[in-house]
């Protein structure tokens, strides 16, 4: 066997180098152990490549593999923009998912992606596919978890609940979270955690909820902040106009608050009780009766999956009657969907194809309303796979316009229906409202003791809204026009 004989100096070098090598190598491992926790903290929120790879081509994986996560995300986002322009909405979803996995701090992708999910999937008459609201909100919540220092995602979550879902308590929670974002030096809003507009929209949200004293307090916080900004920069036109708008808003709110609850003769339609605790006038009461909306609804299916809603309602022009057609167990399934969010919905933004939901409104003019709802043209959105359906007509005072609220109060205290269509919106978080004394009163002062409302056996300081609601329970055959729809299909509100 031939063995090479190395010169002595090379062999000596080898003997000397080996121990040094071992020490240095051990040092790299020690350093790595020091670096690891910091890297782990930096990477929190990033999805491992094993989950990102699902359904994507290798060329998308190569870049992230080489440490180009952010650049890949950025380029994919640019590509997304093209899809927005070309209207290829389905192609956007996987990209949004991938980008937010690659770069969990891409806040605009969370916001735009969630907006896209909630607003852009529509039927042929531009009605939203509401099945996408759950994934949309879950995406926003993921964005909030990954970016606790950015108020914008919470703001978007709040706005979606305010504008699209009309869940004002969820909206208020999100806006409050946005405001409570820790102030951060690099942001435009420093020394505040969120932009001024967040206070404005939160105040509006409180007003929608009937939490008027809190709305007033929020306007006051906004005013204090804008006054501070104005003091720093008195010539800034934005600050000047914002400050003026806030003053106007708070003044209007006071006016409405005063008018709705204090003026007996206001349009003869406001609940006359001084303190708005009234659900319905007690039997035998001599208090003037609240306004009777006297709702009559007719729901027909002239052709399969094509419906006609019509009827009368004794209310001012501009009021809108909400209609919802859905599977009978839609809400229960919806809750279940939210529970399994991480597995199904967040991975693929999946909606359940066999679920049917439609929401729309019909406006009331001269006490009449009429609307055709064509669900036959969008079988992908409206599968009608269930056996039983729920058709709900609701007049909700919370979502209605201010001039109607002026007549009936923030919570519909001045409303009743001769057919006893009144139900209470038992949202748990409606805080109690107390009268303030006059236009320039001192705002909300709750005594902290009284328990005006009991909901589900718990004392809750709040005032439920009074909804006017008619619910049909219909079979698939009825919706397909094979069997007639009659008043017998109406389920009494008490039975629900």
């Amino acid at each position: 066997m031939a063995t090479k004989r190395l010169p002595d100096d090379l062999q000596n070098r080898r003997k000397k180098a080996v121990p040094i090598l071992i020490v240095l190598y051990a040092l790299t491992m020690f350093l790595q152990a020091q670096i690891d926790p910091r890297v782990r903290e930096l990477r929190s929120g990033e999805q491992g490549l094993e989950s990102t790879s699902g359904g994507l081509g290798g060329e998308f994986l190569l870049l992230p593999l080489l440490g180009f996560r952010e650049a890949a995300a950025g380029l994919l986002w640019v590509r997304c923009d093209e899809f927005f322009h070309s209207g290829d909405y389905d192609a956007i979803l996987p990209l949004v998912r991938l980008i937010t996995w690659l770069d969990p701090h891409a806040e605009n992708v969370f916001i735009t992606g969630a907006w896209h999910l909630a607003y852009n999937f529509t039927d042929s008459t531009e009605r939203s596919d509401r099945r996408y609201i759950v994934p949309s909100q879950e995406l926003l919540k993921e964005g909030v978890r990954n970016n606790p220092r950015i108020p914008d995602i919470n703001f978007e979550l709040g706005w979606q609940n305010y504008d699209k879902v009309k869940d004002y308590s969820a909206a208020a929670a999100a806006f409050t979270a946005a405001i409570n974002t820790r102030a951060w030096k690099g942001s435009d809003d420093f020394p505040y955690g969120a932009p001024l507009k967040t206070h404005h929209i939160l105040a509006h949200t409180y007003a929608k909820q009937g939490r008027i004293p809190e709305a007033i307090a929020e306007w006051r916080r906004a005013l204090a902040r804008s006054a501070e900004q104005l003091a720093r920069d008195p010539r800034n036109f934005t600050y000047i106009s914002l400050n003026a708008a806030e003053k106007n808003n708070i003044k209007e709110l006071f006016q409405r608050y005063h008018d709705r609850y204090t003026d007996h003769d206001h349009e003869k339609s406001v609940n006359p009780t001084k303190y708005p605790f009234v659900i319905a006038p007690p039997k035998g009461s001599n208090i003037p009766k609240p306004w009777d909306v006297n709702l009559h609804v007719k729901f027909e299916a002239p052709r399969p999956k094509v419906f006609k809603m019509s009827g009368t309602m004794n209310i001012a022009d501009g009021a809108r009657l909400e209609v919802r057609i859905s599977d009978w167990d839609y809400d229960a399934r919806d809750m279940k969907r939210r529970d399994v969010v991480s597995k199904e919905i967040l991975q693929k933004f999946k909606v359940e194809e066999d679920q049917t939901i439609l929401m729309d409104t019909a406006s009331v003019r001269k006490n009449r309303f009429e609307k055709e709802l064509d669900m036959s043209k969008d079988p992908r959105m409206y599968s009608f796979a269930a056996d039983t359906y729920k058709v709900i007509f609701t007049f909700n005072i919370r979502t209605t316009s201010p001039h109607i609220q002026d007549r009936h109060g923030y919570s519909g205290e001045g409303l009743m229906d001769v057919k006893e269509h009144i139900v209470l919106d038992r949202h748990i978080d409606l805080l109690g409202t107390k009268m303030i004394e006059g236009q320039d009163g001192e705002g909300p002062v709750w005594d902290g003791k009284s328990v005006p409302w009991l909901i589900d056996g718990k004392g809750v300081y709040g005032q439920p809204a009074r909804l006017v609601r008619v619910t049909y329970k219909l079979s698939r055959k009825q919706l397909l026009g094979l069997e007639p729809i009659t008043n017998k299909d109406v389920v009494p509100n008490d039975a629900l």
Partner: protein
Amino acid sequence: MSDLYSEVVRGSVTVWVFFSTLPLGKEVHILMASAIKIDGLTKKYIDVWQKQEVIAVNDLNLDVQEGEIFGFLGRNGAGKTTTIKMLLGLIFPTGGDATILGKPMGDNSVKQSLAYLPEETYFYDSMTGWDLIDYYGRLFKIPQPERARRVQQCLEKVRLQPDAWRRAVRGYSKGMRQRIGIAQALINDPKLLFLDEPTSGLDPIAHAELRDIVGSLKDEGKTVFLSSHQLADVELICSRIAIIHKGKLLTTGTIKELVEGERTEIVAQGSALHNGVFAKLKSIVPSVSIEGEDRVRLISTSAEEINAVIDLVRGAQGQIVAVVPQKRTLEDVFVETIRREEGEI
């Protein structure tokens, strides 16, 4: 007289023992004036694919004296370059030993006095000739302005036209590249140069010039270990040569020893030579050729043979027309040596 001789021997042995016990013992070799002393140098490879042992150099023994130009001859693949690379520490032997200028081969310090021109080097061909030589000068840590002076000296010595000094080596002709190659070998004013085919593939003028440059190194007291196929060149400039074949040293000696040999051609003439003289001549020398009626040409290899032939011819009334000592070319020696080894002769 013999006492004096034994005294000298005993003294020498004492001195040698004394020096060899010193840590500097190896320096003694310098006194012996061997530039290269190769002792049983062997290089074996394992051919991984064929699982065969390949012997590139087999038990090579060689002694190159200081100040001589030593020709190292052999066919392609005979092991010439392998030997040089081992001596320079570029590859490592599997057996044997060698000393270069008194230091073990591969020793870094001795490289200060060495030079090597590999066969067919491309060099860093985007550099200019000047920069290239300057770079090699920096590897010897020659400071400026000494380095610039030496670079110029080397370029002049290899007769590279000055207008090419600042041009990229990429544009050089083969001859110019070879000149640059020798220039880089001279930058450190080496004591010992290993030149691998310095003159092959050149036009006749360049060939002659480069050969003269190499030859002139001897006058400067440098030792040159010249590996070459250009037997004519070797014959002209080398004092001693070695022939290596398939890793084995076949022969070594001075050119004179190898080419002159002891062959003599004798031409004899005489009408009486037919009568049995031819047969007798054949018994003295093996190589006899009869030319015509009365003329014979024969090759003898020793003085006894010559005398015997002359006696025989004269005794038969014949005439000796010519006695010519025969000189072989180096090529004859080379071809004959290799063929003999191969068993073709």
